[in-house]
């Protein structure tokens, strides 16, 4: 299932994710956190903090970032990189929104398995 073509999967409507909040997407290859910012941008990242495994979906979402609920490492959702001195990076997945429907390209998730 890997290949050059994106493997878009429609997962939910934008409005099903709370603004400045998130939803958990359960897949056979692990959980993905879907985030929706105050400006309705949607992001997807592995729901697993590279620091100590905290579920990022449970963190506070602000601008285009999320703070891990366990130890407050803040991740930039555009890049997956931790802000500040920490060197962590969480895996992110491409997202597109069409007609209010969120689709995520989960190839990388499957490949990581």
């Amino acid at each position: 299932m890997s290949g050059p073509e994106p493997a878009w999967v429609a997962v939910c409507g934008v409005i099903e994710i709370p603004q400045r909040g998130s939803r958990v997407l359960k897949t056979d290859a692990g959980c993905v956190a879907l985030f929706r910012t105050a400006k309705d941008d949607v992001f997807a990242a592995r729901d697993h903090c590279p620091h100590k495994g905290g579920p990022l979906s449970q963190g506070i979402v602000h601008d285009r970032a999320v703070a891990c609920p366990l130890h407050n490492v803040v991740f930039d959702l555009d890049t997956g990189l931790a802000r500040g001195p920490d060197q962590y990076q969480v895996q992110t997945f491409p997202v597109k929104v069409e007609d209010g429907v969120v689709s995520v390209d989960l190839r990388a998730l499957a490949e990581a398995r």
Partner: protein
Amino acid sequence: MSSQRLVVIGNGMAPGRVLDHLFERAPDAYDVTIFNAEPRVNYDRIMLSPVLSGEKRFEDIIIHNEEWYKEHHITLHCGKRVVAIDRDSNTVVADDGTRAAYDKLLIATGSTPIMIPVPGHDLPGVLSYRDLDDVEAMLSACQKGGRAVVIGGGLLGLEAAVGLKMQGMDVTVVHLAPTLMERQLDEAAGHLLRKAIEARDIVVHTQANTKDILGTERVEAVRLDNGTVIEADLVCMAVGIRPSVALAKDAYLDVGRGIVVGDDLRTSDPDIFAVGECVEHRGQCYGLVAPLYEMAKVVAAQLTGDADMAYTGSVTSTKLKVTGVDVFSAGDFQQTDGIEEVVLRDAAKGVYKRLVLQDDRLVGAVFYGDTKDSAWFFQHIKDGTDVSEYRDTLIFGPTFASGDAVDPLAAVAALPGDAEICGCNGVCKSAIQDTITREGLTSLDDVRVHTKASASCGSCTGLVEQILALTLGDEFDPDAAKPICGCTELGHDAVRRLIVAGEIKSIPDVMQQLNWKTSCGCSKCRPALNFYLVCAWPGEYEDDGQSRFINERVHANIQKDGTYSVVPRMWGGMTTAQELRAIADVVDKYEIPTVKCTGGARIDMLGVKKEDLPGVWAALNQAGLVSGHAYAKGLRTVKSCVGTDWCRFGTQDSTGLAVKLERFLWGSWTPHKVKLGVSGCPRNCAEATCKDIGVVCVDSGYEIHFAGAAGMHVKATDHLCTIESEEKTIIYIGALMQMYREQGWYLDRIYKWAAKVGVDYIRETLAKPEELKAYYDRFVYSQQFMQDDPWAVRAAGKDAHEFTPITLGSKMETA
């Protein structure tokens, strides 16, 4: 190109500073390995005296914490002493066999305290004063009290003596020379110093030579060679230091008194540097911190290929770090030919100043009692400034020399840009001013972080503040509050005041009207703002769940594996068979792996899956159990003992009062968690006197206590008042809660709030009947909107998205 390997022997202040400079210049140039004979991270050794006297704690004087080492990928071998340097294979070997190869080696072995080899010097109870182990040994000896003898009346000896005195010991100082601190002070200043030390009830013997130390099992006394015997439970030797050179000597490096280095701070082996107190440079060894820091700059430069940077020696100055005794000395003041002196004495004020001049240039200075202009004079010495123009008035300092009115800022304004302000860290005035302007700094803490000025011994703090005032003009507010976070310039108090004054009733409005710098705040300010709005506008403000930490958003405590714990409320700690049965059934049904009692004496079910939370709550609700708010910055628990119901010592119905308090206070949001205890008698079985609020019942009524802590910080409560009736006790506690809610900064427990506003202020305010009533009434008003069980509404479907994941298993296959 891969990094070179730098091995550092020693983890004191000098190598620490070398690495600071090195990482600033070239963060990735070296893979660094440090061997540290002490089993801890790098700390500020010159601040050991305040630790000994109890004015600071060890955590306050750490320079580099463990994160710093991690961040710079440093391999730190703690508690391993290097025993050999093999220059043929460029390798060092530690006492446990650990080996490390180097491209460059930095020796920073420091110095060892000199122990006078008199008979008995090796008895238990005879200590040096050099590292934290010594301080800890002294502090533990102090707990037993008794007599201490300090041998050595120099800088360290006197600081040790004053510290031991402040810890309650009877202290005697034994000094060989006729004058205390004779290397830094002349006879007159030494005399004034002696009087100041004696005024602290410390006995001083000068011209006193220690003959032997007496004792069989451990030290019992010190005998002088004139026959005097001074009883001692503790002897501290502080007679000087000796560079630690053994390792260098064994490696056949050039060694004199110290390890010989050139102006490039290389030893006789060009791949090996040395820095700090172990070094001998141009015949000089240094035991003060400023020269070490000057050397550190040069070593870092040399390590990064800047061969031009050279160390040419230091002019040193000394300040005694004893609170209330101001002593300064610099340069040369031992009498020699061609020297002229200017002396000022003000016996009544206890001020003594002596300047030593040679060819119209200042070469030395000694000040006692008034050292505020010492930076200005020290600069004259370092620069060799020609003072012939204002020689007559030189001793009156910069204010007089410039003819300006007496303005505390004028003295600082008159300093040239390269005047050294912080001797410890070698920071000059212009460096501080430039950094303030460039980085937009506004507080002392900022300046400390960015320039390190006044971050070591702190004796230049006043000067740094004046430079801040000078640079910022009217913008400088010494009492300026720290901003809540990087999103705003405003502190907690200002934000709270403006929310109320401006009638601001939503988070977006706060950010708009108070000029937030970010579009949607951050995880620090949003929870704070949400609480401030909840508190200011009960019944009007709509709680913003997305601005709460996960625990308060889903009303359970997140655990390390992402599961949650659930704690139902048990009013005052009371429960029933029916409740316990319901809990047991829930545990079975949802296969909850762990059940235990919390510190607040409630039952905790741990390891609940998030999806199961609504089901667990519904089942608990059916048995009448509601949320225990064990996750909340709010009222947690009221712990109780059994009081007059059962106990043969109980004086009041403590359980009954605990139940009433918990039913009254539950559901209220507060700046941080609030835990109460009610004890039925002064035996205090509910541990009420280390709670945020505690009640201790006595025969005549109820003692109300508050501002205790038993977490990271442990503190007994302060007494608020004693009340005769239960009803009025509840009113007082409600008013106290409201006062804390309205004034506390988010995440400050009651004890921190009380420390900021003052315990007396709280007591006095609540002692006024009209204030008491107003606070109480506002609390009661607010509570009517707060007391809905958050579990019940969620079990009934609120926030369902939180607890229902989107599942995708099958879609993946077809994608």
